[in-house]
């Protein structure tokens, strides 16, 4: 299992020093839509790269936005990653741009839509794709449970799952379910990669601000996932309130310990 982190401009200097324990980087495609792709082949010399999307909006009915898909593919061509990833979510509709990830209902109709979009992206980029679970404060119902939806989606799209451990933890707290029972319902072979970061609290709600160090209960859940599935990579996904390099190295070391224990 590879251990790495999400590449962010704020961390570029530290990453250039080839910090101990970091074997791979996840590139957010949108951060390179307006330039900077020339840096990616250089990064690829030192790290395995994965390309992650935020805005392809797989859950939006209708065709994928052609311009966004081509911009995403340009980043993929520059990074030549082992695999690419996107969220099981929608960020826009025909009428509005919501600017961030929103949940889709677990229905057979949506499953068909997301699977078709995932296949199209994978074919366009010539890379395997994995899909990520998101946090949602709205609980949507459909004709499938969330876990059946994910298993069937992976089968229909012929793809893997990017399991965001923190998102699973947050959803389990906000919607009062057992994350381990949820995990046992997911086909282990589908889980390819993990995301992890600390959660935040806003009143009685848990949120994913990507601004906190990983809490012990999230690490505990990550250990359970790694025991359950043949995970190939785990990515620390910090976006705000970046700590000192020494703190990040400690977090990376904790992820390395998870790898070592399996």
């Amino acid at each position, binding site marked *: 299992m590879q251990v790495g982190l999400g590449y962010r401009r704020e961390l570029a200097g530290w990453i250039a020093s080839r910090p101990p324990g970091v074997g791979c980087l996840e590139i957010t495609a949108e951060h390179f839509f307006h330039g900077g792709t020339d840096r990616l082949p250089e990064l690829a010399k030192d790290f395995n790269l994965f390309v992650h999307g935020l805005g392809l909006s797989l859950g939006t009915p209708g065709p994928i936005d052609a311009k966004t898909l081509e911009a995403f593919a340009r980043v993929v061509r520059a990074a030549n990653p082992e695999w690419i990833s996107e969220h099981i979510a929608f960020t826009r509709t025909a009428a509005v*741009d919501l*600017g961030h990830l*929103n949940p889709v209902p677990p229905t057979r109709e949506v499953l068909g839509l997301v699977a078709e979009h995932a296949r199209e992206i994978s074919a366009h980029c010539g890379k395997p794709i994995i899909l990520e679970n998101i946090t949602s404060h709205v609980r949507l119902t459909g004709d499938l449970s969330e876990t059946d939806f994910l298993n069937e989606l992976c089968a229909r799209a012929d793809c893997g799952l990017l399991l965001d451990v923190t998102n699973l933890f947050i959803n389990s707290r906000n919607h009062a379910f057992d994350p381990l029972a949820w995990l046992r319902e997911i086909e282990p072979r589908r889980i390819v990669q993990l995301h992890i970061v600390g959660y935040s609290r806003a009143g009685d709600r848990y949120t994913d601000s990507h601004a906190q160090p990983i809490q012990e209960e999230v690490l505990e859940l990550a250990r359970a996932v790694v025991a359950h599935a043949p995970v190939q990579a785990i990515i620390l996904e910090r976006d705000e309130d970046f700590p000192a390099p020494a703190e990040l190295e400690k977090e990376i070391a904790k992820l390395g310990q998870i790898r070592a224990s399996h």
Partner: protein
Amino acid sequence: MPPIDFISALGQLLSDGALRDALAADPGAVAARLNLRESDRAALVQLVPADLEFQADILLRKRFGLVRRIIPETCRSLGAEAWPLFRAYARHHAVARESSGARDAHDFCLDLHQHRPAGLCQAERNRLHFAFSQSRFALHLIRRRPAPWQCPRALQFFLRLGRRRWREMTFYVRA
């Protein structure tokens, strides 16, 4: 107008605070108003208004994060009021497709100009106004709340070089 699907309806709800208020009062009426497909109406009625509001707030926070980067002086000047003022504006101003953070910041400045003009940084407001205008050039005298070593007045000059390219120059005026 053909009936819309659940995801399109959810998108409208998450971008429109007044529509969320209406849903909390009468979900059936909102389903009818949106012309939601019959098969999706049960899912819409099951939405919990407080959850929907929280999800919408997460989106507004993301928008605010972008806007804050574009008009940092205005947000600094508004201090703790910046977020509630932005929320009050954004709750009723959806971001249209193909729009941008700069357009959102521009519209927020227009809203502040009406409701809280003292909090607006003139230089930032002028910049956004010029960016979305067709003008070839513009000249503004701006008054600033300067640090002790700074000039309190400046001339802000904009010159358009192309459809999306322009230059800004500021000349500080000594009293």
